[in-house]
């Protein structure tokens, strides 16, 4: 049995500016934070900035986290709020140019052995489906927690997840033809 990561213990050390504790917390949470940000924001530079901002905000509001609660879900919620704020402010005014801005899903970053990049894989999904799929697959977040994060009933989340996988399978099938 794998022991649960002791977030509360690390956070106590983090308050004393313990670098090792921060690195451990970062490693445990970065996938969920990244997943929810890239589901909403598609620019590489913006995604990096938002990840950094998420951790800065987490530190600044650490007093609002109640020990014993689900820290992962808490920090993912911070990331989601920041990403949505960013999206609302910029998504219509900032044209994304993959050539100049280093698109987050630039094919240079594609998983080379498979030939598929993240953009191609999740292209057919809408924003909610992206969050659900990426949170579950990239950060192993439980559907129950995802339901809280995306504010939808568990049944709907499961349904959307299955729908999203089917969409992606179909997309890949088309690509292979």
């Amino acid at each position, binding site marked *: 049995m794998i022991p649960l990561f002791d977030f509360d213990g690390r956070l106590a050390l983090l308050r004393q500016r313990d670098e090792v504790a921060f690195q451990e917390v970062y490693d445990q949470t970065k996938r969920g934070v990244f997943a929810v940000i890239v589901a909403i924001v598609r620019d590489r530079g913006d995604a990096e900035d938002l990840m950094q901002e998420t951790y800065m905000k987490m530190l600044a509001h650490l007093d609002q986290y109640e020990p014993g609660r689900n820290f992962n879900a808490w920090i993912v919620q911070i990331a989601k709020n920041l990403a949505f704020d960013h999206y609302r402010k910029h998504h219509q005014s900032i044209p994304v140019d993959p050539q100049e801005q280093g698109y987050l899903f630039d094919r240079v970053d594609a998983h080379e052995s498979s030939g598929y990049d993240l953009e191609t894989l999740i292209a057919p999904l809408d924003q909610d489906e992206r969050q659900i799929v990426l949170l579950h697959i990239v950060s192993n977040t439980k559907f129950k927690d995802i339901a809280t994060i995306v504010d939808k009933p568990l049944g709907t989340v499961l349904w959307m997840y299955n729908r999203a996988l089917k969409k992606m*399978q179909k997309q890949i099938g088309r690509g292979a033809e």
Partner: protein
Amino acid sequence: MKRRELKNLIQNAAIAAMPDVCNRINLQTAVIAEMPEQPTRPQIRFGLSGVLKVAMVSIFAVFSGFFLYNQFRDQTPVLALQTEAEVYGFTMVSATSILSQFSLIDPLSADLTDFGTVIALADPGNNPTTQNAPGPGTNPTTQDNPGPTTDAPTTTNPTTTTTESVVTAALVAAKVETVTRYLNAMEIMLAEKTETEYKIVASETVGYQWLLTYSTIDLLGNTLEYEIRYNEEVDPENANRHLITGVMAFGDVEYAMSGSAVIDGETIRTTFRAELDEDNYVTVSDETDADGQKYRYTLVQNGETTQNVTMRLQRENQKLVATLAWTTEAETAEFRFQKKTTGGLEIRYRYLCGGEEETGKMDVDVEYDQERETFCYQYAVDAQTGNHMGHSEYSGDRSNKTGMNGHHSGMMGSIGSF
């Protein structure tokens, strides 16, 4: 591509694209919230009366909480069908199965004609007496029509089977044909979870996106597999609604399927229609509520709605249990279907008609009819309460799921034989 491979692709692609911002955060200069000061614990003065009060209140709270928890837990329904494949598969296959029975029923005469052989037994030692049953159907007035044979008891002249010389028919006999309409569907849909499999994969048939397969085991032990090919797309006018169109072959006939799945707040509502032609179809609509998972089946035959029934689904010990119910001005009926571990189906029923109520049990088995050279349902009915208590037996048509020569009709493909 398999789902596992797809997941691996996504995971690897995401990890490859993930930036590392840890080193961009200077922990020593970052703003870190100070923990609020812990409130000082108030001094508590202990006294016997105070301790007793606290103890009593605590005990009361624990018992109340436990009681409320159990109440809540008991009332939370567990959905019998949980996945999209199960919901789509069950509703589509059951609707088509019911629709396929239309060819066995003459809607104009169903209420007035005999539906089959009725053998009522007072004494198993006697030669069975063949009689004509009162006509079943949606028209309740026909239930009072006795069959043409004079020795057959009727609902207007109820007789119980307490003596050897008297034969009787249960009040519910009038509904055997109606039950038979659904029995073909029940035979293939009700099985232990380990005996059934619902699967959705990408369709290889040109013109269809998805292939839904449902495999099950019938009462003769045959493994059957049904296939539905369909397309699903988002409704351009409502992003929460998915439109579904497809086909399902059942026997030699191909039925058109259409429907929708709508995300409505906390639920997903499905509606399907299996259609033979524009005048003959079955619709299934989701009516799940706090009481459990329920579907309404509406049967339209030759342009006329012939029946409206509700099917409630429950999962008991891994077995799917279905309760069919309907109420009209003249009657109320409830039939609870369950597959028996020993083979066959058990139906518990409650039937009210003409101010009379009957409850009882039906055991249904599939038997080969030598004369008709086909398999039939054999009903052994035990009316346990009411004016017609006793044992009686009936026969009902069973659609050809498996033929005598090994031809498997009623399915797209089949595994195994009897």
